């Protein structure tokens, strides 16, 4: 209809709404993004209808399908305190710098005596770090480091929580933090006896309540049929 002769150049298009939207989305994703360092192992948890969110304040033991245990605490302050106490208990010296660096690491799965080397290693080297055998939890040779990690980690996480709570309540404000919870994450293929060993460490410490991490299942009433025989 238009009698304007089309010129050779591209037609002018008002991009403003698109650009507005793009920036809006960028802002949204930037603000909601939470950065995490890669976990030392990827485990694929089984699915369940469990709807409870994993608490932010947690003490997490990961068990991979070979039965190796990995330990992590979400709260950096508690993590540093736990390492200090572990270092004193097992007489493995750590520098202040190493302790600080440790607080930023995700779960660890090395013997305490290899830990200084692990902390000093570069990010890429950690993936292939050799003695990543999982945290020892032998009960035959008494070298149950996992139990100590859980005990000290749990103790410090509670201390940090109580401190924070007290500080806020002294100012007559409502405290919104969560109590630390114990979580276990295991791969679908992990043999249950490995998980049982880990659970035993918890129950020995009189900790009976856990959050078992699972992925969300779609339907709700359907479970995966096992391999047909």
């Amino acid at each position: 209809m238009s009698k304007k002769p089309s010129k050779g150049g591209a037609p002018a298009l008002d991009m403003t709404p698109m650009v507005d939207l793009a920036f809006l989305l960028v802002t949204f994703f930037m603000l909601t993004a939470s950065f995490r360092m890669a976990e030392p192992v990827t485990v694929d948890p089984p699915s369940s209808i469990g709807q409870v969110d994993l608490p932010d304040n947690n003490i997490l033991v990961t068990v991979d399908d070979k039965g190796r245990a990995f330990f992590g605490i979400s709260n950096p302050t508690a993590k540093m305190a736990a390492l200090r106490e572990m270092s004193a208990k097992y007489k493995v010296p750590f520098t202040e710098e190493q302790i600080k660096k440790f607080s930023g690491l995700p779960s660890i799965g090395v013997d305490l005596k290899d830990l200084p080397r692990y902390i000093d290693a570069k990010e890429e080297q950690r993936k292939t770090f050799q003695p990543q055998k999982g945290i020892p939890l032998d009960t035959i040779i008494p070298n149950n480091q996992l139990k100590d990690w859980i005990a000290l980690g749990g103790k410090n996480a509670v201390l940090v929580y109580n401190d924070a709570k007290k500080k806020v309540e002294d100012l007559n404000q409502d405290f919104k933090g969560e109590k630390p919870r114990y979580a276990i994450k295991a791969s679908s293929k992990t043999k249950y006896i490995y998980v049982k060993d880990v659970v035993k460490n918890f129950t020995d410490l009189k900790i009976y309540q856990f959050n078992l991490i699972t992925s969300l299942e779609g339907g709700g009433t359907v479970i995966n049929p096992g391999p047909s025989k």
Partner: protein
Amino acid sequence: MAEIQEGGGGGHKGGKKRAKKQSTRVDMTPMVDLAFLLLTFFVLTATFSKPKSMELTFPAPPPPDQKPDEIKNGITFLLTQDDRIFYYEGQFRAADDDKGKKTSLSELNFSQESLHKYLLEKNKTMHDQIRALDDKHKKNLLPDTTFKRLVKQAKSDKESYTFLIKTDDQATYKNVIDVIDELNINVVGKYVMVDIMKPELDMVKEKLGTQ
């Protein structure tokens, strides 16, 4: 590159001409490119759902000198290799005695017709009760607290079954979670993880060996 041409008009000696229309136009292309780049990055790295979890309480080990309580109406699941489940009802008996016959194991699997159906049957009264409460609750006929109390009450029914879950050394974590999940779906009131006993393990082995 970026065409900020503020000086464009300033070069003229005649001050009146400096407000030319195109002089304020800035090329936004690089900025928009960057914005989309960032957008793509954040979209791809975003993790929306926090991991979900299932709350579970393990039993405290009984004091060593105390004999474990006899469980009335117990159903024991024995999980083993290849996603197989054996089960028996009532007390375990290694041989016939005056109270009943020797325990024999039956088998279930994780399909919808097997375990789900079995649990639904065993737990029918409680299941119906809780479903009825849930319906009422959804229609806003019951307040939250009353609903929770009634569900708790229904779940602690003395006559209902207690489910015991035991595993041998071949069962996977997925099997355990699937069974617990299925128990949760069927709103079972009482279930517990227990260590397997030697005679039970032998019976499972025997069963696996004969097939």
